[in-house]
């Protein structure tokens, strides 16, 4: 089992995964792909029992609205706001939180 997949992790190029999943409205992306300040709705959380349970206990359940506040560069952790509290989540966990963007992000809108 990989303990910290950070070293083997593929680089997350901007927009690379953005259009991979299509949902009814907007796209489903890992929360790490959102811009700071952007809001999304949790669709699915991947990971082992311990991680998903802990996240669910902290309020990250499907259909919950979640907002990304900060992201530390160079694959650092992200800060999110969910159900009125702020959480710091490591990148390797955050990449497995898939969200549907509430409004299509700006770069998808026609100018």
């Amino acid at each position, binding site marked *: *089992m990989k303990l910290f997949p950070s070293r083997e992790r593929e680089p997350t190029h901007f927009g690379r995964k953005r259009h991979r999943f299509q949902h009814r409205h907007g796209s489903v992306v890992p929360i790490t792909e959102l811009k700071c300040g952007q809001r999304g709705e949790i669709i699915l959380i991947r990971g082992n029992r311990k991680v998903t*349970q*802990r996240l669910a206990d902290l*309020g990250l359940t499907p259909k*919950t609205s979640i907002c990304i506040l900060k992201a530390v560069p160079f694959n650092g952790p992200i800060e999110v706001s969910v*159900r*009125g509290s702020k*959480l*710091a989540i490591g*990148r390797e966990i955050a990449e497995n939180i898939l969200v549907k963007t509430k409004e299509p992000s700006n770069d998808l809108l026609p100018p």
Partner: protein
Amino acid sequence: MTSCHPSASNEKKTTDEQANLTIALAGNANVGKSAIFNCLTGSHQHVGNWPGKTVERAEGSLRFKGYKIDVIDLPGIYSFSTFSMEELVSREHIALEKPDVVVNVIDACVLERNLFFTLQLMELQVPIIVALNQVDLARAKGIKIDEKKLSDLLDIPVVPTVGIKGTGVYELVEKAIETAKKELKVKPKPFEYGKEVEERVRKLETLLHETKLSYPSRFVALKLLEGDQEIKKEVQKTSGKIVKAAEEYAKEIEQIHGETCPVVVSSERYAIANRIAKEVQETAVLKKTSLVDRLDELATHKVFGYLLMLAVMFSVFYAIFTFGNFLSTLISNFFNLFKPETLDVTAKILWEGVAGGFVAAVTLVLPYVLPFYLLLTILEDSGYLPRVAFLLDNLMHKIGLHGKAIIPIILGYGCNVPACYSCRIMETQRDRLIAAFVVTFVPCTARIIVILGLVAAFVNIQWAFALFLIDLAIIFMMGRIAFKAIPGESMGMIMELPSLRKPSSRVVLTQTWARVKSIIYMVFPIYMVGGAVLAGMHFAGLLSPVENALVPVTVYWLGLPSVVGVLLLFGVVRKELVVVMPAILFGTTNLAAIFTPAQMIVLAFVTMIYVPCVATFTMLRREFGWKTAAYISIFELALGIFLGGIFFRSLPYLL
């Protein structure tokens, strides 16, 4: 203040025949349980604004209106699953030891998430009252909670409180007694889940009816659906059929909802919590962002956050050094006035040992320890430490840990003992061990005193800083080695960032005093006894055999005077003794007369690395067992001496 310490005003009324009550404080991490606990019992349980600092339950008691009340402060948890030690400890305490009342402390700022836990407490079927804590902070954030309505909806008494100020605590105890005294213990009525889940819970409940378990059947039914291993094992003992049925039901729920069953149960619980919170809570949108919000923005900023962090760390060390140095000189000059001129041998032993130990303690320890703990407590209470953890997550990954591990490391600069203990905030045993191992390399106040007292005072401050930097490099390298060498699983960071707040002067002062007091009570006797023993040995001529035995290491390998052998032996007890003792042996605090600058640097370096002190060793043994503690100590002894010798040989090229 008036409502705090209810015991004080009521102590006289107590009679011999007292009714005993037990109150357990339970709730999410970082909601102010420890603050309320301290307020109730008048004790100084560690309070800090970072989640997970209470890792084991604390107990205290108070007298109130003729009752002797035992209060138990349980560690903060978000749920009753059994993935962490704290969750299991809390759950077993509440279900098995059955306190008379559980006071569920909830944070008014994050009502919904706190109610998620309240709902689970209700499922445990114990008498509950709710302390709606930090109402002042919530109000400042524009959150208004109708506590009457909340009380009606939950069918549980709710008391608004401000734990750190003691507001509402009196009423809280009154309500707790009232609830505990009720003839017919009113058990909370749990809320119903969605139809698919509720149906199956009911079915399991009827199946569980005949089995005798220590938990209520509804709770067991839900935990079975959630796949809780501990509960499964327990039920399996009496009836394997029920476990099978539960697994069957869980599968059905999964098929209906398209999510795993634990997630479904959590979602539904959150849906209830959300409904209640919406009902009772009014949030006004604040127009201007407060100063605290702007600071928070800055504290985790990708550029300014790091600058702020460096500035904070640097100013803390700089303040401690300048202020400590100033105070130390002042006290030292003061004591020199009292030095007697002529003495016979016994008086000399007494004076130079006991008084010398005392003076050394006052002049060396207090000036540095006091400001350090003051600043550390301010940092802890403000909620800044989790922000540092957030910023340094990347760096900590390099040594196989995640950001949270920085908290024990920072605490380690105060004292390694509580720092090793706080490694329990790490999720897995492996992470705890790596963190604790790394922490033992962190120079605690004792070692900082050695570095400042030897190097900064007699060589120069640049070298003192250099030693701290070298130590950081060693911490990093050792962390990497441990990361590669220690097997086991690891988990990424999931951490709550508590609201930043202005540190409460009351909390900061009592905390600092509690910490300094423990140093005075513990350390001063050691210095004085140690000093007397050393002075006695000195006059009895017992020192030279010990010194001679260690000459190959001290003189030949490390290039230090032979007296260092004894110093390093005493240093195992308390590392400051390395600088305190020469003052006793040679009757002077001018260490420059004893060591050359290079020797001072080497001695400070060796003292920094070699073996954890006795207290740290004891803590390591308690947390990880004899073998691990011994391995760590032997490894560090070898490393300290090995690197010390190399350092000694390379110094001539550096100085």
